């Protein structure tokens, strides 16, 4: 190992010469050694670094492929028909190609998050310097994902650069393997998928750590402010400035300008997607001023634009519709792009004065502008909104059809069904058109919540009927009442909170963590999220929200007029509801699991990913739900959870990710772990049954959630609680007792107390178990033994006597 240190050196004899030494091989280990920290076996793992771990996971949870297209169109040998797992001209078969496609999807998502991280990091380093300390609140383990993966314990913004270097290098290596004529084995593509997912959580973590530290965002606070959400909370009488995207960097300049120029009450500032969530976190430390409102998710983008309400639209990156400019142009709404990832062919006005840009956009010389200079952006966006509001009022822009037009449009419909077939949710549009002829528009109104606002129906209709506008017009009353409450994202779960709750989680007495994350491609409207969270909270699960799901959850109120955010406290405790924040805050969910291993079980985190993942797999009953997952980012997030052994359920649309990881409960050999005390094999329950799968409806989801929170290390009390919920939810939502409940029973004390006798009778009569009725004890039958002090592990080297 070199004795040279990283940093800047001047050489005395040579004036003005400065040598900068960056990364040195072995530097992480050396730094750690000096600080007395043990470094695990895999700091900064390369693609093959955790392959053994992946193979362990993949031997139990086998990849299941459901191709969206049976052909491969990658290269000029093809198109190749891969139907029936055939090989293409390059030799790749369907299985490997599907895995390759998923890998591409995952690293696209990872790149989106980490490029966002790099962008915001650059920006904040420019503004605050490399030495700006990272501050996440009361935690010693401030970057759990980063530390577990890279071995780096970042303390300043500058330290995060090295982390990003690693992520970017790995993503590039992974991307190269997609190229035709590289990897041929599906299983190695699978391992690469998990690698990409792991990197995603590091990239997200960097993003959020940087912005939390510099932008006054809440730091592991439980009592973050409640903010308004919904199309109905926007006051269209004021100038309306709408921002869309995921990267709040530029938006903070707009917010500062509005605040500094006393425009807070004179302008409506509202956001769509995660930028909106991060706007509500901006300077929340200082009392949450200036306020910004949340409109909602991607599903509301087109609806919001077509309402004609925005006077100016600002976009940054990710989850922004590609047609924002075209749609906005039709309604004379100028669009400002602020990030090189989305430029829409607009002229670059970054070096022009605010006055010039405002003049050109307000006279429609250009439909919009690219402004990469945030100082200029900060001034242009609000001032232009004020100006445009008047201009657009004077122009008398009406966006949606009138009642008469609604009826006329309904009459134009020839009931051909093209819209319904093309609608991703196959919504019954024809029936609404039929009633519309008689001026009954209620069916259009019913479509409003179910419609994901994609606009495909408009494109499909041979009669050019603007179906989406009709839905929106008919739902104006509903939309005006769309006002909800969201708790602003709180950031990480702190170390002290973990200390308080960790033991309950590990022992299983808190029934589990349900993390509801992701986008808005729901099969059945937004209310389903509310139903799921409500049920699980009542049952004392910890419910964690982020991103678009966190927003949509705030759209519904209970009979007392409260949203769940108002009803439930937001600590990391059983029965609490937590919004961690925007998409990049998802890293705090995996970070929490890592923290439990580190803090509660005293596991070494640094560069020790496999051991941490093994611990989480066997002990932490967490299930991720991305009910409306649509994006590449969502699949990347899911894959990162998967590598840590956290199962993820996506809604039925998620089947279009074309891959799942599903175990076979009937394959007994797959459900075994070692007991780390002596290396002996022990059978375990088939839960989690999958690492990634889909559910058809929330009714099916409920029991899946409860069952898949079961872990090998549950104690009897924990298993009893989890099993009770599994049985109850199955009975409540599927109308029957689950067939496999007995598989999770190790001893009579695992059985729900109230039903113990009844269940013992069933075990005896239907499953042939032996019961000592005097003592009400199970004598024989269970496949598993109950042993609280057992130490389940999948990693042989962690067993006593092994090395």
């Amino acid at each position, binding site marked *: 190992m070199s004795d040279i240190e990283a940093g800047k050196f001047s050489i005395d004899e040579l004036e003005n010469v400065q040598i900068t030494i960056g990364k040195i091989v072995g530097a992480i280990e050396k730094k750690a050694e000096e600080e007395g920290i043990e470094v695990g076996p895999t700091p900064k793992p390369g693609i093959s670094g955790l392959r053994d771990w992946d193979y362990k996971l993949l031997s139990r949870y086998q990849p299941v492929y459901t191709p969206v297209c049976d052909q491969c169109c990658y290269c000029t040998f093809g198109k190749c028909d891969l139907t029936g*797992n055939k090989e293409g001209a390059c030799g790749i078969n369907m299985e490997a190609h599907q895995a390759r496609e998923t890998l591409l999807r995952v690293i696209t998502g990872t790149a989106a998050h980490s490029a966002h991280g790099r962008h915001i990091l650059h920006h904040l380093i420019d503004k605050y310097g490399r030495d700006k300390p990272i501050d996440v609140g009361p935690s010693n383990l401030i970057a759990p994902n980063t530390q577990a993966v890279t071995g780096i314990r970042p303390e300043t913004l500058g330290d995060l650069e090295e982390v990003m270097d690693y992520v970017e290098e790995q993503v590039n290596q992974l991307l190269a393997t997609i190229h035709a004529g590289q990897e041929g084995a599906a299983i190695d593509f699978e391992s690469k998928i998990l690698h990409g997912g792991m990197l995603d959580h590091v990239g997200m973590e960097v993003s959020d750590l940087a912005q939390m530290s510099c932008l006054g965002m809440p730091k592991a606070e439980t009592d973050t402010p409640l903010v308004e959400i919904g199309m109905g909370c926007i006051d269209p009488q004021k100038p309306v400035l709408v921002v869309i995207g995921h990267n709040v960097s530029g938006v903070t300049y707009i917010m500062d300008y509005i605040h500094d120029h006393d425009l807070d009450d004179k302008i409506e500032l509202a956001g769509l997607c995660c930028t909106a969530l991060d706007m509500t976190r901006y300077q929340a430390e200082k009392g949450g001023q200036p306020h910004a409102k949340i409109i909602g998710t991607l599903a509301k983008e087109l609806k919001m634009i077509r309402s004609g309400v925005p006077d100016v639209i600002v976009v940054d990156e990710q989850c922004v519709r590609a047609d924002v400019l075209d749609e906005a142009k039709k309604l004379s709404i100028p669009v400002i792009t602020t990030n090189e990832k989305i430029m829409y062919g607009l002229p670059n006005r970054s070096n022009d004065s605010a006055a010039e840009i405002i003049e050109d956009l307000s006279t429609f010389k250009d439909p919009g502008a690219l402004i990469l200079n945030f100082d200029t952006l900060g001034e242009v966006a609000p001032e232009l909104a004020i100006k445009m509001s008047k201009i657009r009022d004077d122009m008398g822009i009406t966006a949606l059809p009138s009642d008469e037009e609604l009826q006329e449009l309904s009459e134009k419909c020839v009931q051909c069904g093209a819209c319904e077939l093309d609608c991703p949710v196959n919504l019954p549009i024809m029936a609404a058109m039929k009633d519309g002829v008689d001026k009954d528009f209620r069916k259009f109104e019913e479509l409003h919540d179910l419609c994901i606002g994609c606009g495909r129906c408009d494109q499909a209709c041979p009669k050019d009927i603007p179906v989406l506008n009709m839905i929106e017009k008919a739902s104006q009353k509903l939309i005006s009442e769309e006002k909800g409450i969201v708790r602003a994202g709180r950031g990480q779960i702190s170390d002290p909170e973990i200390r308080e709750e960790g033991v309950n989680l590990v022992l299983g007495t808190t029934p589990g963590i349900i993390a509801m994350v992701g986008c808005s491609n729901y099969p059945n409207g937004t209310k389903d999220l509310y139903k799921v969270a409500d049920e699980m909270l009542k049952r004392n699960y910890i419910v964690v929200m982020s991103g678009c799901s966190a927003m949509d959850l705030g759209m519904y109120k209970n009979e007392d007029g409260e949203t769940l955010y108002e009803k439930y406290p937001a600590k990391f405790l059983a029965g609490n509801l937590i919004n961690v924040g925007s998409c990049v805050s998802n890293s705090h969910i995996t970070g929490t699991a890592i923290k439990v291993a580190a803090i509660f079980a005293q596991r070494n985190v640094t560069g020790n990913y496999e051991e941490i993942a093994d611990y989480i797999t066997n002990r932490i009953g967490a299930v991720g739900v991305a009910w409306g997952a649509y994006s590449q980012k969502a699949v990347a997030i899911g894959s990162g959870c998967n590598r840590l052994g956290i199962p993820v359920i996506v809604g039925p649309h998620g089947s279009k990710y074309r891959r799942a990881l*599903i175990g076979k409960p009937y394959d007994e050999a797959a459900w075994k772990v070692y007991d780390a005390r002596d290396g002996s094999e022990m059978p375990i329950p088939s839960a989690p049954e999958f690492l990634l799968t889909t559910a058809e409806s929330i009714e099916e989801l409920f029991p899946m959630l409860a069952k898949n929170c079961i872990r090998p290390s549950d104690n009897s009390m924990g298993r009893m609680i989890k099993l009770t919920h599994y049985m109850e939810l199955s009975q409540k939502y599927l109308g029957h007792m689950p067939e496999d409940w007995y598989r999770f029973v190790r001893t009579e004390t695992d059985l729900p107390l109230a039903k113990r006798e009844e269940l013992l009778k069933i075990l005896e009569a239907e499953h042939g178990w032996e019961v000592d009725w005097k003592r009400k004890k199970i004598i024989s039958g269970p496949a598993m033994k109950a042993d609280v002090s057992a130490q389940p592990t999948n990693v042989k080297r962690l067993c006593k006597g092994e090395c």
Partner: protein
Amino acid sequence: MVDTTKNTQIYSTYGRKMAKPVNPNVAGKMLSKAKRPLLVVGSEIVDNEQIIEKIVAMAKKGIPVAATGHSITALVNKDIGAKYINIHSLGTFLGDKNWTGLDGQGPYDTVVFLGHKKYYLDQVLSGIKNFTDLKALAIERHYMQNATLSFGNLKPEVHVEALAELVENL
């Protein structure tokens, strides 16, 4: 006789091997000949009494029923021994020679689908088409291009009529 072979418009996926359009009488006969058929029913049947009735009729003619999603709620009291299973898992197990089926009697040779979300089933069928030798028959209201045989896109009333004809031919 209902013609269920006409409108085979698809909407998003593509492959060279597409389902052959089939009429209900042929589908019915094929099903009766199957050694080990399985009727897989999805959540879209809940609240659709007419379809539930047809499922019960098919089950009573000896076809075992797998109930996916929450479709089991509509079948628990029908005395047809329907068993709940997640469809993504089912699609996986169906391709495994070691799976002994929902009743432990061994693998299935013909799977029939009814009452599913179009886009969801299409994916499951794509897995079955590409990775198993099973015959998959879609008797849905929509053309399912990844099945072996499928009805075309039908209006709801025609669909019910077609199912009735299928049941008669069992």
